[in-house]
């Protein structure tokens, strides 16, 4: 653009042109400056990360590939033996091949393979914590919404509460409960549920604040009380979005509960951490495949349901 000349322009045109070019220059300067600042930060961050790691990046890179190449099951079927708890022909009495030990017998000879069972635990942790979080977030969101709660102090208190619940590190809640209740999924449920209350609560009150207030006005005109106004004026508008966010949250919580599982909450996360930490390749790949399929399936189901509800809601991750 700067190739244009000011020839043939009037005095006013030239002024406008030079003013415009000045603006462009300032803008470019700011862009270059902010990119410079960003790169400086990045450089420092990379240097710092590299130095505080247990091994430098380029020193460790060959080891990483070594690990990847050597971390393989004895034969591809081992993965499925590990997955379905079928005795391994390589069994040597070590924990590496003790696939059938983990079977969970339901009745008679019918058993659920260990990893399927652990996956079931993790999925249930995710579902119940989403449900519990929803039950708490639902009423709180109405209190936090500007258009439904007059008292500014009450709104402020509820919003700050939701913020703290959202930002409070999940591992601390889980760790504390693990110390009290001993290892197990209940710690994970509470930790994930607490975060869910904060996250869903925020999304929900934003939805409520965007609701059309005309039905509410109508109900107020015919003498409806607060609950009636919420029930018949607001709820029908926000419910599809609520359910959509709930489904999105379920997806996220499945991931969250595997991670929390790994730090003491039980379920598939813990088994995975142990098996990769001890170099049990077949078991590790079996779990990765199971987890991958589960997450893809849950994402797919949730996307389909959401599409049916509101024709797809965008964003709102994490």
């Amino acid at each position, binding site marked *: 653009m700067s190739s244009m000349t000011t020839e043939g322009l009037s005095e006013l045109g030239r002024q406008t042109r030079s003013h415009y070019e000045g603006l462009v220059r300032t803008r470019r300067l700011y862009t270059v400056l902010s990119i410079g600042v960003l790169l400086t930060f990045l450089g420092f961050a990379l240097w710092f990360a590299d130095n*505080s790691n*247990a091994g430098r990046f380029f020193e*460790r890179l060959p080891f990483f590939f070594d690990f990847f190449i050597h971390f393989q099951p004895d034969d591809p079927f081992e993965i499925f033996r590990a997955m379905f708890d079928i005795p391994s022909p390589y069994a040597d009495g070590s924990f590496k091949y003790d696939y059938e030990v983990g079977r969970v017998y339901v009745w008679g000879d019918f058993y659920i393979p260990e990893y399927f069972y652990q996956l079931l635990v993790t999925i249930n942790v995710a579902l*119940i914590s989403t449900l519990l979080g929803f039950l708490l977030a639902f009423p709180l969101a109405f209190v936090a919404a500007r258009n439904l709660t007059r008292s500014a102090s009450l709104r402020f208190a509820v919003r700050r509460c939701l913020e703290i619940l959202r930002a409070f590190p999940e591992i601390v809640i889980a760790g504390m409960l693990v*110390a009290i209740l*001993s290892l197990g999924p209940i710690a994970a449920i509470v930790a994930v549920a607490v975060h869910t209350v904060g996250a869903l609560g925020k999304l929900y009150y934003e939805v409520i604040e965007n609701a059309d207030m005309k039905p509410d006005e109508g109900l107020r005109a015919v*003498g409806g009380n607060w609950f009636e106004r919420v029930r018949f004026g607001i709820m029908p508008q926000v419910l599809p979005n609520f359910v959509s966010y709930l489904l999105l949250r379920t997806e996220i919580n499945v991931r969250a509960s595997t991670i929390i599982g790994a*730090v003491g909450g039980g379920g598939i996360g813990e088994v995975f951490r142990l098996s990769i930490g001890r170099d049990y390749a077949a078991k590790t790949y079996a779990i990765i495949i199971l987890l991958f399929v589960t997450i893809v399936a849950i994402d797919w189901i949730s996307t389909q349901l959401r599409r049916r509800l509101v024709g797809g809601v965008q964003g709102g991750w994490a």
Partner: protein
Amino acid sequence: MPALVVPAQEAALLRGKYPTVFHRPLWQRLRGPFAVLLGVGYMVFCFFFFQVPKVVEEAQWDRAGLYLADWYSWEATPRFRFREDAVSIEWTRSLLGENPAPDWIEARPDGSYRVSFSSVDNYIDILSPTDVVAVLDGKSYAVPIGPEGAQLPVDAPQAMSLKGGRVTVDFGFAGSAEVRNTQVYVRHRFFGWPNFFFDTKSPFFGMTPDQLWEAATSPDRIDPRMDNWQMIVAEFLYNTEWQHLDVFNKLLQTIVMAFVGTLFAALVALPLAFVAARNINPSRIGSWLTKRAFDLLRSVDMLIWALFFVRGFGPGPIPGIAAIFFTDTGTLGKTTTEALENIDDKQREGVKSVGAPPATIQRFGVVPQVLPVFVSQALYFWESNTRSATIIGAVGAGGIGLKLIEAMRTNQDWENVAYMVILILIVVFIFDNISNMLRTRLIGRVEH
């Protein structure tokens, strides 16, 4: 409030006029109750599936109180040992300095001690190895001590309990005293953390801000090797129990993990999204492959990436960065691809119609449409990754998460946990605000 009354005739008319409102299909009417029933049923199932009654029954609730008390208070734990007819005091892990002589312990010339708790009516007198008197709310109870252990006095109140030859006298928040036949173990609780800034061994321990300022500015060096203010900073950072320097270092690692991971993910996801978008990339195979790559990156859990990279690179921020980078490239790539596929084609056509080369078409016809969505998403990810980085740190990716989980495992350092939680909350809060500010400045107010 008087309800609005509709005359019967009119009501019938309305009913006839709007059958969809007054006679909804059965499944629509039952949908709500059915959902509630399903939820309740599922909760009952989970109640038994997770064996809630058993876990709650076996829980050690008293621990919760102890740990939480550590969050805002500390305990002095002197032991009064009985040695050959005499009582001697012994300190363990004391925060009272080298030679503690607190005013709540009165040492008498005859070798006996009085330990007072919160008020003049609550104290315990340790007169001799066989003579210990507890005074609760002004009433005194002599605790009989025999060779088999201590016994409850006959008229013992609720605050005194016996367990395995040990009598525990509970003084509420102020602490407790445990009388055994070899010693009296006193736990006296106080608000705050006195050694938060300086170790008890440090010359600056217990100084007021004024005194500290005076020491910092005074030319007389306490340590000849450095100035006083340098020493103050060093003593603070290398505090042995609170490990401020280490905590800051680990916190910075977590911040770096989130920042670098998200930034790299954004830099890689944006160009890849152009490859994946059907309406921009004419190659079907390229688009399909990139989309599946996004799905793969996204659906392999962050935990899996984290543990894989921890095995490869060793503990530290590098595996954390890698895990965040891999997962978020997938997620950001997917959302950006969706945004690209939903763009308005007219702007692109406009730029194309004036004869712009392909790169310019993308730059001026496409990028301005998706950039707001992209930037907003990337900032949102940065924010939420600050939290994720804490958690994946705990599985070995270093940072504050690892330090947190180590502090919790020892079951003693709950005050350090509280300190780190507060720091994390502050960092998350600051980043929330920075990210919101940047979002508003870059793309204006948007509904998220």
